[in-house]
């Protein structure tokens, strides 16, 4: 995945864009929020980096950091889910594929949930389901907007079986309760947002924003190709495709995200 490369390359002065091969200077790359200036490919961001890029400086306060998954199904015997979790936890110093907390956006407090594609493809199991549900409950009590940013190619996490599937219900009903009580929910779809995450809370924003050229949809493109036995048209399941078909409100480039969110909150909330 592109995101991990960025971190490894901290000490390198330059690297080649993995999409277009253009030479990118690392310091410039960070200044323009991890976007290739030649092909405008938006490199995936870690949750921490998202927070730094969008919200008021040092305003983030993490919530529910202590919630961790367990090997519900005993996948351990076959593929060592517990070991995998342990390995990822120490590597990224976080328990699962999501960070939640409060931020300030132009001094307005908001609750955020940001999935992490480095962690089992940002898939949703019990922890993601619980933490997402909780931010909607907290935001309801506090009277604040909710913003989620999803990079989840994995959808519902298969390692937790049907429990993961039920997280789709758990999160969707949390959105429902929150929104029907007047809450403002903005969902930002980053690359990629697919399957069980896309088919639950991520699709349920009052406003849905996509990053340019993100992969967005339900079924993965390879599975569709195998099923219909033909290749997919260019641009299929991109943000632009979803905009054209009416499923997102707008596409916003990373550098414009902060100001757009500020405006939306101003119009709808303040």
């Amino acid at each position, binding site marked *: 995945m592109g995101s991990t490369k960025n971190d490894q390359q901290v000490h390198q002065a330059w690297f080649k864009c993995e999409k277009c091969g253009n030479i990118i200077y690392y310091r410039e790359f960070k200044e323009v929020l991890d976007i290739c200036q030649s092909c405008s490919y938006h490199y995936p961001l870690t949750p921490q980096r998202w927070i730094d890029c969008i919200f008021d400086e040092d305003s983030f306060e993490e919530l529910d950091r202590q919630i961790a998954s367990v090997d519900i199904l005993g996948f351990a015997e076959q593929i060592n889910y517990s070991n995998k979790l342990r390995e990822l936890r120490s590597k990224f110093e976080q328990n699962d594929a999501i960070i939640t907390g409060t931020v300030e956006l132009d001094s307005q407090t908001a609750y955020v949930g940001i999935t992490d594609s480095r962690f089992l493809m940002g898939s949703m199991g019990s922890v993601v389901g619980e933490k997402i549900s909780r931010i909607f409950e907290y935001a309801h009590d506090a009277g604040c907007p909710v913003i989620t940013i999803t990079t989840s190619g994995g959808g519902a996490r298969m390692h937790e079986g049907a429990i*993961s599937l039920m997280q789709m219900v758990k999160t969707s009903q949390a959105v429902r309760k929150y929104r029907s009580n007047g809450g403002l929910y903005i969902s930002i779809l980053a690359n990629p947002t697919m399957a069980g995450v896309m088919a639950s809370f991520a699709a*349920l924003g009052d406003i849905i924003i996509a990053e340019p050229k993100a992969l967005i949809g339900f079924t993965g493109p390879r599975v569709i190709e195998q099923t219909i036995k033909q290749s997919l048209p260019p641009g299929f399941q991109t943000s632009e495709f979803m905009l054209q078909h009416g499923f997102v409100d707008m596409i916003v480039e990373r550098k414009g995200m902060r100001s757009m969110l500020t405006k939306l909150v101003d119009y709808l909330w303040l």
Partner: protein
Amino acid sequence: MAIDPAKSLKELETPIIELEKRLNDLLEFSKRTGVNLDDKIRQLEDEIKFVVRGIYSKLTPWQRVQLARHPNRPETTDYIRLIFDDFIELKGDRYFADDPACACGLAKIGDLKLFLIGQRKGSTMEARLKYNFGSMHPEGYRKALRKMEIAEKFGLPVISFVNTPGAYPGIGAEERGQAWAIAENIFEMSDIKIPHLSIIIGEGGSGGALGICVADKLSILENAYLSVISPEGCAAILWKDSSKADLAANMLKLVPEELRKLGIIDDIIQEPAGGAHRNPSKMGEILKNYIVSTIKHLQSIPLDKLLERRWEKYRNIGKFIEEESAVAGLY
């Protein structure tokens, strides 16, 4: 009798089919010639019962998945005929099309008026193609929701039959927002103000199933399953080998007893010996009784309490620990 877990269901069923053929031959011979073979016939019938019980009581999860997909397994179309005294189908999503993979309509058992939503698979090849083997498009989910809202408005309890390998994977389905259609159904069903009983009658394929089954009671037939991913799909991801589906089926804990332990399934409905396909009319009768008593029970619960219970059930599904030491792999 030990069951070979590697055997496909078809192989397992072969001895039964042979015994049944012998029984038919005997019956026919006896009828044609007038020779009394009653003793022999009874003996053979007992033997079949014994073999059936032996085979079906010890199926592996993968063999049960195959049973859930059995080509002769009764499906929504059969149950409409077997269970309900009347059915008026209501078609179309009012936006794009009518998705035949999902039957919606007014249904009656005696005096009990219901609203039926059922994923249809079809029993002939022609019907299966028409119904996309039970895989719904976004217009199917939107139809189901629109009709559920009619049920809500006019006070008809909803009964849904789940039987799908998954939501349809295709270009049109994505163009029309498959993910959005499923999400919006889940969103609305979690708070729809009418009792809803959902029964998984065969395959409960992931989000495709979830798009119609958020209910007050989620029940399942003995040889049906619910899974986040198909066993073949899971095996393909884990081992790049879909033939290891039997291993994946064990791991996914997708059979009814496991699902009940996880708090997902409320009731498991027993099937006739050897599975629903061996006695569809008996299965229909069992389901009919179950539906009538369960709907009556749900109707007796005050609506606000019903909605609260529905919400609580899904709020509490999930297993995790909450301790600081878990962070960064310290435990």
